[in-house]
């Protein structure tokens, strides 16, 4: 769906999305990297379950949430790619572990 501009001359980095390697350019946001790689569903809504993807690309809408290296609800449009990053879809809302009587 999205295509890179033809004359970009930046180094590449490799990260993963749902366990599969993705090539991105240094300086990409995770959102740009995933969109360029053809990812269409970044998360599903914890309210309706519907599939979502970036909308504003500037930090305002929270539609682009993904899990990055195990940390939930990160805004893909505001987070720069790093080599080896493990990105996953944000499925619903994160669950707090309250089994320890409220101790974190």
């Amino acid at each position: 769906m999205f295509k890179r501009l033809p004359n970009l001359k930046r180094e590449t980095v490799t990260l993963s999305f749902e366990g599969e390697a993705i090539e991105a350019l240094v300086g990409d946001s995770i959102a740009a990297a995933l969109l360029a790689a053809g990812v269409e569903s970044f998360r599903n809504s914890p309210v309706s379950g519907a599939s979502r993807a970036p909308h504003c690309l500037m930090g305002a809408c929270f539609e682009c949430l993904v899990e990055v290296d195990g940390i939930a609800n990160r805004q893909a449009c505001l987070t720069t790619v790093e080599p080896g990053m493990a990105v996953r879809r944000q499925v619903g809302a994160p669950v707090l572990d309250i089994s320890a009587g409220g101790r974190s």
Partner: protein
Amino acid sequence: MRADVAIVGGGLVGSALAYGLSREGARVVVLDEGDDAYRASRGNFGLVWVQSKGDGMAEYAAWSRNSAGLWPGLEAALTEETGIDLGLRQPGGIEPCIGEAEYRDYAAQIARMEAQGGVGANDARMIDADEARRLVPALGPEVVGARYSPHDGHVNPLHLLRALHTANAARGVDYRPHHRVISIEPDNGSFVVQTERGPVSAGRVVLAAGLGNGALDKDVALTVPTAPERGHILVTERLAPFLDIPVGRVRQTEEGSVMFGASAEDVGFDTGLNPAIFADIADRARRVFPVLANTRIVRLWSALRIMSPDGFPIYEESVEHPGAFVVTCHSGVTLAAAHAIDLAPQLLQPGFNQSFQAFSARRFDVQAAA
């Protein structure tokens, strides 16, 4: 066309009154400002709260409880008329205590309210740490107990405001934004309300302009001694449901966000943000709920409460200019049901001041003279 009632202010108070008046068949015009106004109704915490309300005024304790009881009816009517889900939940609520001193203060407040007679403390009681944890398993080890009330709850206050506006529009209420009221002229038993876009005539006029009431009260020989009090609110990322009941200064919305509130500062009309206050609020929330330690805050804001000198509502009809009223309160979410269902019809009847004697601003004159 002359309106039966002109309401100054389209926040939760004015909108609830307009809704109630339209149910009585009155022709209502609501005169409001634009988006740059001070509007507590867009920045509040959304509690429908009874415990601790009315410490110092038994009538207010009863009125808050009455409103909580009327809320399911208001919600049902608004949802039926508009299709908007208000997210009302009234499962009871707790206010956790960190340290024995807080526990003693809350217990003392319950005793004071019981001694007032009437509805007393509205069934609020102190519970120990074990009972509190049975209600709210995520409470942290610093919590030594809590004040519990079975009558507390919460609602989405923005959906409430939208539902009131939507229902009012469908009922033919004439809502006029960008009609700031400049003055009110009593005119042979009715009123000419001068707005920035020209005059509006009405048989009755209600000051429901929040912090704007103080600039208009003298026009109709009322006194509304309210002042702003700033509160900060923080909102977290969405989390899976972990909090079934509202916990005073922490509540989880239906969508999963957790709200932390709300500070109280006297800074005049300054709606700026104070990072030290945010830090305090977040720190308290983290001590009550250590599981939130790594949760991200995604939004924060401040808004101004509308506070009378004792914190209780002011409801009064002008003696010199009957048909002119003031209706203002701090807890406009909690009281929305009482305003719409019980208070609004009385704006069309004689005897308003007898019904709401306890809420007259004259109580402040007495204190000043004593």
